[in-house]
């Protein structure tokens, strides 16, 4: 290979091609496992928030704005039993992704946190068990119905409540449509 440019280009070309091939193969093998695991993790989260969902059919609804996913659950005869929404709130340290189960009338059946990056020990108290548990049973919008924020973690608690309220407004729209 007298021409150095050709030799250099060919070497880098071969290396990139082989590497890409290797990674693509690994991706191809791991893809089914990853998607299966993620779907299962999400189903587990939904069940932890809305146990009855296991026996109902899920109907995917159109999600807007901060609400990333909204599924309605109908029983055998097609009667609407409840909704489960995954909604994102802008917390102190970053996004807080919540999973909330709501009855058609707007009462929260259960709530859980999928992912947050609040400051450990400060913001995380608002995203911890007790405050989220206090949401259960309250009806939306939570601001007026007796759910008070965690002292010292106001931004995070307000983010959680705002996210819940936004889910409600989307559900009300769905309800009318």
């Amino acid at each position, binding site marked *: 290979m007298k021409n*150095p*440019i*050709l030799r*250099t*280009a*060919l*070497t*880098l*070309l*071969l*290396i*990139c*091609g082989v*590497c*890409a*091939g290797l*990674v*693509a*193969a690994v*991706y*191809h093998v791991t893809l089914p496992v990853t998607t299966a695991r993620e779907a299962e993790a999400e189903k587990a989260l939904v069940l932890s928030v809305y146990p009855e969902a296991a026996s109902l059919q899920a109907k995917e609804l159109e999600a807007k704005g901060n609400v990333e996913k909204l599924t309605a659950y109908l029983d055998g005869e097609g009667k609407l039993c409840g909704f489960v929404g995954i909604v994102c709130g802008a917390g102190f340290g970053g996004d807080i992704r919540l999973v909330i189960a709501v009855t058609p009338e707007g009462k929260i059946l259960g709530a859980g946190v999928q992912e947050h990056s609040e400051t450990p020990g400060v913001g995380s108290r608002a995203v911890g068990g007790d405050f989220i548990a206090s949401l259960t049973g309250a009806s939306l919008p939570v601001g007026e119905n007796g759910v008070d924020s965690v002292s010292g973690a106001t931004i995070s608690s307000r983010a959680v409540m705002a996210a819940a309220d936004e889910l409600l407004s989307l559900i009300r729209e769905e309800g009318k449509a």
Partner: protein
Amino acid sequence: MEHIFYAVLWFLVLGGLFGSGLAFLAKKFAVKTDEREERVKALMPGANCGGCGFAGCSSFAEALLRGEATPDGCGSMDTEARDEICDLLGLPRMTVEKKVAHVMCSGGCRAKEKYLYEGIRDCRIAASLAGGNKLCHNGCTGLGNCERACEYHALHVIDGVAQVEKDKCHSCGACVKACPKGLIVMIPEKAVYAVQCSSHEKPKDVMRACEVGCIGCKKCEKVCPNGAVTVTDGVAEIDQTKCTSCGLCAEACPRGCIVKL
């Protein structure tokens, strides 16, 4: 399945594009470098210690190529590298005996103190207070400026006086500059016996100040078979070129300040 095909295809394209681009740029922007320069730079010890008086190995190499310096300017280069550079530059082969640092004092705790020094652990600051806390004017204060200056951890302050680990010394001279009292000199590595005192005081003062100070009694000078030891201005010195390391001077010295390294 087809994403694997696309992945390989696209990366072949990207790899080829960048590969040829870089190769083309390398040719177009090729800076006319003297190919000897790469070779000489590769032979450098790479310590950038400054012992040769230049800002680092690469500038010393450039000076070599411009002929402004000679290969024996660098002490910490091993001999084969120096020979190859001499051949590359067409100079006669130079032999440079490797020099190592040597502390011209062995007082430390055995040297009495004028006052109790509780200041900052720095020889230069201590020396500014009436020449340091030792009775002996140019005694080692043992606060370790040289130890800190040495990149290769070749110097350690033990029992209050700095001592050199010969095999670790890269003869870069950093310690020589660091010692405020100029107690550190470079002696040939092969030296076996060396004087560890640099006090030019009168015998009476030396006796009062330090247990191992040289009082200039000239016993070593008389006993040395080949005149390598001379006492000048109250302190003995060994001329390493004449010294055959017979060791007679060390035995003869009543103070024990001629030491076997």
